[in-house]
């Protein structure tokens, strides 16, 4: 599902960072762990096609990202990739339900209400559908962020530090939730973190 080879990224200051090859098959879960500052987020953005590598290749679901035009890349990312960010990003002018339905609408115009209801039910957001996103608690925002990464049934979910702001109990909960949801939509899951508490939850690990 995800394969990288000889991936390297050149920062604006000329410093180049190389990454170990990563391979992840369909439906598999992988943890990429490493201390702060080794370019974990950069690696994630490279894999999501948000940054262009200076060297090496990324291929996702058999498609080599460098072969896609900018426009194709946008579409491909929108359809195939679910991103869960370290900082929560929402559209603040929309309520919870509209944020989810917006995510469904692009790039393919889907309006699957049942999917939204089921997902928010499982993530405990069902009663908050019509709340403004800014009115949600930290934990609710975390779960909405996860929901936004999953709602469109992506082939691969990239999660960036999904547990960094959470206590031990919630950390375990969120990891379980992610694994569970990934399994339900048969997505591959790649988590990038420096959080050692997550280690024990995954068999497949890459250490940066």
């Amino acid at each position, binding site marked *: 599902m995800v394969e990288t080879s000889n991936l390297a990224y050149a920062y604006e200051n000329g410093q180049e960072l190389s990454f170990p090859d990563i391979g992840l098959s369909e439906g598999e879960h992988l943890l990429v762990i490493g201390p702060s500052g080794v370019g974990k*987020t*950069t690696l994630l*953005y490279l894999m*999501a096609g*948000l*940054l262009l590598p200076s060297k090496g290749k990324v291929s996702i679901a058999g498609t080599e990202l460098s072969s896609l035009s900018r*426009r194709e890349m*946008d*579409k*491909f*990312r*929108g*359809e195939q*990739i679910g*991103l869960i*960010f*370290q*900082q929560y*990003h*929402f*559209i*603040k*002018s*929309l309520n919870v339900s*509209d944020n989810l*339905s*917006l*995510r*469904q*609408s*692009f*790039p393919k115009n889907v*309006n699957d209400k049942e999917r939204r209801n089921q997902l928010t039910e499982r993530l405990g957001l069902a009663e908050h559908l019509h709340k403004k996103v800014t009115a949600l608690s930290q934990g609710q925002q975390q779960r909405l962020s996860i929901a936004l990464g999953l709602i469109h049934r992506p082939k691969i979910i990239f999660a960036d530090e999904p547990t960094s702001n959470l206590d031990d109990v919630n950390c375990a909960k969120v990891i379980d939730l992610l694994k569970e949801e990934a399994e339900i939509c048969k997505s591959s899951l790649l988590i990038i973190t420096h959080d050692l508490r997550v280690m024990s939850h995954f068999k497949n690990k890459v250490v940066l």
Partner: protein
Amino acid sequence: MKLGYLAFRNMVSKPLNLLLSLLLLSLSVSLVTFVLQLSQQLGGQLNKNIAPFDMVVGAKGSPLQLVLSSVLHIDVPTGNIKLEEAAAIQKHPFVQTGIPVSYGDNYKGFRILGTELEYLDHYNAELEEGELYENSFEVVAGSNVAQRMGLKIGDSFVSSHGLAASEGEAHDDHPFIIKGILKPTGTVVDQLLITNLESIWEAHDHGEDDHEEEGHEHEENHEHGEGDHHEDGHEHDDDHEHGEDHEHEEDHKHEEGHNHGEKEHEHGEGDHHEHEEDHEHEKEAHHEEEKEITSLLVKFKSPLGMVQLPRFINENTSMQAALPGFEVQRLMGLLGSGVQTINGIALAILLVSGLSIFISLLKTIRERKQELALLRTYGLRTRQLLGLAFLEGIFLALIGFLLGWLLGRLGIWGVSQYMKASYGYALQINGPEVFELFLLGLILVLATIATLLASGSIFKLNVAKTLSDA
């Protein structure tokens, strides 16, 4: 979900920004459309009403007032002229037609105009129902009068003295009867009750033998400015303003003492001797045996008349000639500079509102940088993000324009209500005009420019960096 919905939510998510932008935009739009409609409709209305006549001959005074009163029926007359003198003008070789008009009474504020049937032809007024008047005290009613007063064929009414509803008392021994109702003409005729000249004379003329004590009352001296005379109910023709200033103040005091129950008084020839005896100082000034009219509406046969006759009349007679076209042009010229000033102000506000849209978009685009980056990860292309900003700008422009347009029309409606009550003229609430669509186009262009200027950062958006910067 459509981008349009998101653009709309984005727009309303900043209510204060929205309010300011909309306020500025709608203010400028309403100013421009209101003033334009008002001047167009007034100008159109005026020109339509003066079109049938080239010249008005009336008593000396302000030419504008003469035109306003005799042609447009919105001001009080300058006074009366002798029918005999007017007839001389009618016969002038340059004159095609000269129509005498006489008035001074109203029915609930609608003017009763005594004139010849030819007057109706000049305004292309046709009967909706009934027939034209033949005898005195038979009336054809303008469409608006008939509608507003609910007048039907065969109805009769009693006129009141003066030109406004509240003035004077009823001439209740001379009821008018409706013989016909005219089709709407879109001219001043719609606002008039039209009868023959004799009715006006006769309404003010009654058995002098029975009412000799009224002989002292001399209608011609009344100046219309003298409101205190209106209450006594004796006097009428207070429109008559003569060059001479008579000492009639005392006369009125005198007649107010009399309680002879007469609302009218004679105007006729039979009365004048006694009259003159009572008022010796007026003897030479007035030839009461002559019938009087308020003015003569003239259509020239040749354009030469336009050049020669007015000067001739003004210099050689006690009457004055006014050219409606010239007077209305003068009036519109005065209005025009006001219109231009207001348009200038509106344009300035429009530019400021464009600037405010630009600033508010620029601000929201900057504030929403992260949201825009998020949308890029959802698969939206740069072009779609531009579209989002563009839609927001366009929504603002459209709503602002619509609000402003409605506000402008509301203003026209308000003025129309006022004018209806005061002058009997109503303005139309027109649909969008070509110029207004042009204005809308201008605003959309302005909004587009504002959006494009504000959207620079969308092109340069670094998605990865923006998402990582908390």
